[in-house]
Each structure stands twice: as structure tokens, then as C-alpha cells.
């Protein structure tokens, strides 16, 4: 699975890695529901950190579409709200 963080690039994940991300994604989703910007910022940065740390960066010269796209690290709840699918940022 290929994940893009907007403004930063793409990372490759295997299925077990994605499971872990789903937990963090749920946190982001509930933070958006809470409407609290600080909680949201913390949850989003935790998710993005996990992507950066646990994924394998896609080489810059590689041309490949992403399976999912995460918002940039400095997003606000407002920015993200309309990007959210019912399942959260990560489908499934």
C-alpha cells in the first residue's frame, strides 16, 4: 500500500503496518469529532510520524499513484473535515 502525506511525499506499507496506522487514524477521526484543535494536531502528528517512521519512502524518481492520501502536518480540523470519509482517513 502506498501512502502520500501531502506536501511531503510517498511511503510504502505492508498490510500489518497499515493495521497499526488504523488505530492512529481512529484517534485522528475522534479528534476531528471533538472539535479540539490541540487534540487534533497531536493525533495527526502521531499518525504522520508513524507513516514516516514505519513506512519505506518511495524513491523520488518512481511514478506511482497512492492508495491513500493524508493531509499535510499543519492542517486544521477545518482543512481535514471535508477530506474525511466515513471510515476515517484510512479506509477499511
Amino acid at each position: 500500500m502506498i501512502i502520500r502525506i501531502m506536501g511531503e511525499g510517498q511511503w510504502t506499507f505492508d498490510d500489518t503496518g497499515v493495521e497499526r496506522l488504523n488505530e492512529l487514524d481512529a484517534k485522528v477521526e475522534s479528534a476531528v469529532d471533538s472539535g479540539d484543535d490541540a487534540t487534533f494536531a497531536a493525533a495527526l502528528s502521531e499518525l504522520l510520524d508513524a507513516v514516516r517512521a514505519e513506512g519505506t519512502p518511495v524513491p523520488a524518481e518512481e511514478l506511482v499513484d497512492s492508495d491513500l492520501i493524508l493531509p499535510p502536518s499543519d492542517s486544521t480540523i477545518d482543512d481535514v473535515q471535508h477530506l474525511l470519509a466515513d471510515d476515517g482517513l484510512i479506509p477499511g
Partner: protein
Amino acid sequence: MKRMGMVFRAKANKALDRAEDPRETLDYSYQKQLELLQKVRRGVADVATSRKRLELQMNQLQQQSDKLQGQAQKALEMNREDLAREALTRRSGLHEQQTGLQQQHAALQAEEEKLTTASQRLQAKVESFRTRKESLKATYTAAEAQTKIGEAFSGISEEMSDVGLAVQRAEDKTASMQARAGAIDELIASGALEDVSGTTPQDDIALELDRMSSGSEVEGELAAMKAQLSGSGTPKEISGEAVGAEAPTETPEQKPEGEQS
């Protein structure tokens, strides 16, 4: 976001359908990619310009702050606590501006780094696309055209929409910062934060301090003249005294000149 990426891809596909020869869309897209690359590079340059302007303002505010500190010190030495207080009050007003500028500076620096990386990434991808495009054109057969050419676009459209958005965000940020930077320039120019370049008239605190210095200077000269007049019978002794009386009064006058330059 997924939606945005799909919109972008749909547009690319439309361009594909319109073209008589699908190979032309490859060249067309490549052209667009090069244009975007130029745009990102301009974006990096714009952000750098804004950052440098902020640095200049931060320096100006720091000089101003140092000067007010010096004035407060001097006013206190002259027992003018009111003037010292005024100088320190203005200085604390400056401090708020400085903190604001520091935060903006950090944000711009982060933005600059992000855009620089994005531009390098896009450049690598554009280069890959070019290779892919050339090899596809060389082995092109009408039968495989649509699918092969469609595949050629995978990845690059998404990258382009992402980078395009990043440039847009950077431009928005720089625009709002430039508006604030303009406001600070106006503040400095209006004298509310007096210009340290020395081209504008001195501020009122400096004028008051100068007036006091030159006042005591005048007093000193007067005293020396009076002493000379009254003691004209013994000129040798008096002239020695006069030199001694003149020296200390000169120092307070020269100090502010040195600080203001």
C-alpha cells in the same frame, strides 16, 4: 483529497481523449510538468525573499530595542525616571513585535525547506516521466495506445496536484506575511518605532536627552567663562582650571552621538 486527485486525473484523461494522436498528450503533459517545476522554483525564491525581509526587520527592531535600552540607562543616570520608563515601555512594545516576527520566520523557514524538497522530488519524477514518455513513443502502436499512455500518467498527476497545492499554500502564507511585514515597515517609517538608520528626525526621548546634555554643556561653559572673567588677575591658574572643567562636560554630549550612529 482523494477527490482532488481524481479530478486531476480525470482532466488528464480528458486531454488524452481530445488529442488526435495520444502521443501528443504525453508531450503536452510534460510541458505542464516543466511549467509546474518552474512555478515551484519561483515559489522557493519568493519564500526566501520574504524570509530575508523578515530577517532585516528583526535586525532593525533589535537595534531599536538596544537603543531604547541605552536611552533608559542614560535617562536614569540623569535622574529622569519618567524618560527611562517611557523608553522601557516602548522597548517592551517592540519585544512583542519581535516575538511575532520570530514565529513567522520559523514558519517561513519550514515552508522554504518543504518547497525545496518538493521541487527536488518533482524534478526527479518529471525526469522519470520523460524517460517513460520517450520509450513509449518509440514503441508506440495504435492498438495499445490508450492503455499504455494512460498508465504513463500514473503517479505524475498526483504528484503535480500535490506540489501545485503546496505552492499555492506557500504563496498564501507569504502573501499574508508580506502584508504584516508591510505594516511593520510602516510602523518603523512612521516613527512609532523610530528608524535607526538616522535619516529620520530624532525621537523625542533622544531630543530630551540631548537637550539635557547640551544644557549642562552650556552651564559648564558659562561657569568656565565666569571664572575666567572674575579671576582675570591670575590667568595662569584659571586657564588650568578651565581645561579641567571643560573635559567632563564634553563626555555626556559625545556619548549619545556615538550610540545613535
